[in-house]
């Protein structure tokens, strides 16, 4: 089977997953405690006004009917209106999602740039200094909760040293956000040629991104180390050495490319951990992302917002896993053969 039909098949397979997610997000919010009609009507409401609001929200209809209406709304891109912000959920998410994604992507980038070289060095000299240092960093990274690492970094770099700006959102109030193209301040400011804003945005991003990176580094470094050790001990490496290939070539072309396969798989998982950890990091750094948005929505029984959040996350996961699978298919010629 060719790789193209394999990829097409993989995309087709993700459709039922998405449908399942829609069903679950719908049911989940219905099962949550709290009555949104009562919340909406306010403390002075009479039973009649609550019933009226319930009727206007469509909450008095049967579940299947509600579900169909929900599907209809989804098809037109209508995710409902958030009770607490009063905005449409879609626009809320669209303004907040780039903030979360920018943070997550930068954190993953930092963590890849540190973890992969560390994993390789650790594997070439097991129990050497780099290996020990990596092990320390990795253990610290997973065992300290992210909010604690975040607070610790703030204490040192903001409170004590004063190197970092105050942790209040994506940009210091002195700056204007760059014209929106991608929603990523770093990219947008560069596109606008505004290096001043770029520097300011990066300064705000640095601590939360490092906090998140410390957390995601551990699985990547560990997997790189293990996969490299396995690859370096394999028979094709022995053949390559016996053919006199240079150390560089053996390490990077023969061992690393094979070792990256499991690392890519791990990356998918790490990304989902990172999105989960986002919620805490965003709270600590007052980051206007979707994680903090979701927590607020959950506390105020804001269905539509929670639903929208769950759906967005699920779509993100599905897309991401799809991309990872496609990447894997491109990296490993054996995949197309096996199925």
């Amino acid at each position: 089977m060719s790789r193209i039909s394999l990829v097409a098949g993989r995309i087709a397979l993700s459709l039922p997953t998405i449908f399942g997610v829609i069903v679950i997000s719908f049911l989940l919010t219905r099962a949550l405690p709290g009555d949104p009609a009562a919340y909406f009507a306010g403390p002075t409401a009479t039973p009649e006004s609550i019933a009226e609001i319930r009727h206007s929200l469509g909450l008095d209809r049967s579940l299947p009917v509600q579900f169909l209406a929900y599907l209809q709304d989804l098809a037109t891109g209508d995710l409902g209106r958030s009770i607490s912000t009063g905005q449409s959920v879609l626009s809320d998410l669209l303004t907040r999602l780039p903030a979360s994604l920018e943070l997550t992507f930068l954190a993953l980038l930092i963590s890849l740039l540190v973890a992969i070289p560390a994993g390789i060095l650790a594997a070439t000299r097991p129990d050497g200094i780099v290996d020990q240092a990596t092990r320390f960093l990795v253990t610290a990274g997973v065992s300290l909760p992210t909010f604690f690492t975040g607070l610790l970094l703030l204490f040192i770099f903001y409170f004590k040293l004063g190197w970092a700006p105050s942790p209040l959102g994506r940009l210091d109030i002195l700056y204007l956000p760059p014209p929106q193209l991608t929603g990523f301040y770093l990219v947008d400011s560069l596109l606008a040629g505004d290096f001043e804003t770029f520097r300011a945005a990066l300064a705000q991003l640095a601590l939360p991104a490092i906090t998140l990176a410390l957390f995601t580094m551990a699985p990547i470094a560990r997997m790189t180390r293990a996969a490299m050790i396995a690859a370096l001990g394999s028979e094709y490496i022995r053949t390559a050495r016996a053919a006199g290939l240079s150390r560089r070539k053996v390490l990077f072309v023969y061992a690393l490319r094979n070792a990256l396969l499991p690392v890519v798989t791990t990356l998918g998982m790490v990304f989902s951990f990172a999105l989960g950890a986002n919620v805490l990091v965003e709270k600590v750094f007052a980051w206007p992302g979707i994680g903090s948005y979701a927590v607020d929505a959950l506390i105020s029984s804001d269905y539509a917002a929670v639903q929208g959040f769950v759906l967005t996350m699920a779509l993100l996961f599905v897309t991401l896993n799809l991309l990872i699978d496609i990447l894997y298919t491109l990296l490993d010629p054996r995949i197309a053969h096996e199925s």
Partner: protein
Amino acid sequence: MNDVPLLQIDDLAVTFETRGGKVEAVRNVSFQLKKGEALAIVGESGSGKSVTSYATMRILDRNGTVAGGRITFGGMDLTTASEAAMSDLRGRELSMIFQDPRSALNPIRTVGRQIEDVLLRHSQATRHDMRAKAIEMLRKVKIARPEERYHAYPFELSGGMCQRVVIAIALACDPQLLIADEPTTGLDVTTQKAVMDLADDLRRQSNLSLLLITHDLGLAATYCDRIVVMERGRIVEAAEARTLFAAPRHPYTRRLIAAMPRRSAGLRDLLPPGDTKRAPPTRPAIAAEPLLVVDKLTKTFGPKLGLPGRLFGKSEAPAPAVDRLSFILHRGESLGLVGESGCGKSTTSSMIMRLLDPTAGQIVFHGERIDQIPRARFASSPLRARMQMVFQDHTASLNPRFTARRSIADPILRLGRRRDRRSLDQRVAELAEKVSLPPELLDRFPHQLSGGQKARVGIARAIALSPDLLILDEPTAALDVSVQAVVLNLLADLRAEMGLSYLFISHDLEVVRLLCDRVIVMRAGVMVEEGLTGEVLTHPRADYTRELIDAIPSIEPDSALPNAPVTDDPAAGVPAAPVR
């Protein structure tokens, strides 16, 4: 031929740093190899033959070091050469090929690129002509359609073709010495012959020296001028090939030669001279009634398609793995099932054990159609206890967390009626004695047992319920010859003692000759020939059977000679590489 040796090893000692302290793997090893000469190092596992060759290439594992001695190659001491100098020599002056060619190649790099890597490294090609030179190398190792195969990944090629690619990598830069470490172990006999003939041809063309590391005396005798025999890290004997087999001097060499299954030897001849069992094993009376009847048994593996495959792929009916196979096995009889990998012999045994559902045909065991019993229910059928299996991989087929005692008792606990502790222990002790497993080993775990001991545990487990039929799937293929000799004799004695019937699956005709009354030769799922073992082996009717017999390397002078015309891999056309 030049008289100055190309490779000279003096008093080599190699030690390994292990958790239990220093282990001396090789000591006092000295030999020399002249330009153009072919030398074999022969020995059983743990003899240090591979370690010697790795030390020569300086590719020992991190924990291994050359503790003493000199390795001189073309006047240069390799033990003191710098790593950079070694890396220049490897692949250009001395090359190596390995066992298990498929895993010796980088799985995610095309074979063409892998050959180019070596050419570029040693400046034997430039970016402009490397492709042409790589294809030329593929042609030189007789790979059909080299322009297409240049783009193939190792998994798209057969084992024999992978070994040709490994040879192409090794010889790409025209080295002076080729070290071949068990190059054909795990390959079919006909493929082995094709690969070895090819290597031999190329060697003669360019006056290359060959150091062949092997456990197979026959292979060494066929392709080498001189033979060095190693045992437990030492050289016990070194001689011209002819002299060595005609008049072996060292008792170990004598034992090794005696243990080799060969045309002129009976089962008892394989045992070491001190062994008391000399009387030929009695054969149980073969009853007229059939124990197992297999009729037009067919298995076709459906194209494995998941949902995306069904939606987007196109299905094509594959050729049956087993095609209308029919045979009868009588009570007390031993029937050999012989063929090369992919011929359907293991599929057949899996169907008889009801691990696989046949596509068509009947299996009648003890007069009952067992193919009609659902697979899941067969495990609890009383007939299931009447047939047992012994596997090829003795380590993998034992639960690593079970002691030998627990492994042997396993079928009794699952299928037998014996439940109380005392009688169970007694039965296990009896079984251990039957397979000559010392009782003090019963409380050991698999990793604490040797290969031969694990084989005995596997056999004891199989006979625990006194079955009528034993299916033996290459039970000695992974064992050293001396251990194989003992296990084969044990199997023959057990059969006589317990009146067992054997279905003996093997790729090794010599072993089948020793143990089986009748033999079936299979190829590509079809029975090619059936008959009494003696007749089939001496007067084969089918050409394929003759080909198989001729391909067996032998130490006896009347055997087939090498340098028969080299043919391309028999399987060459089969997994046609999808070309991108």
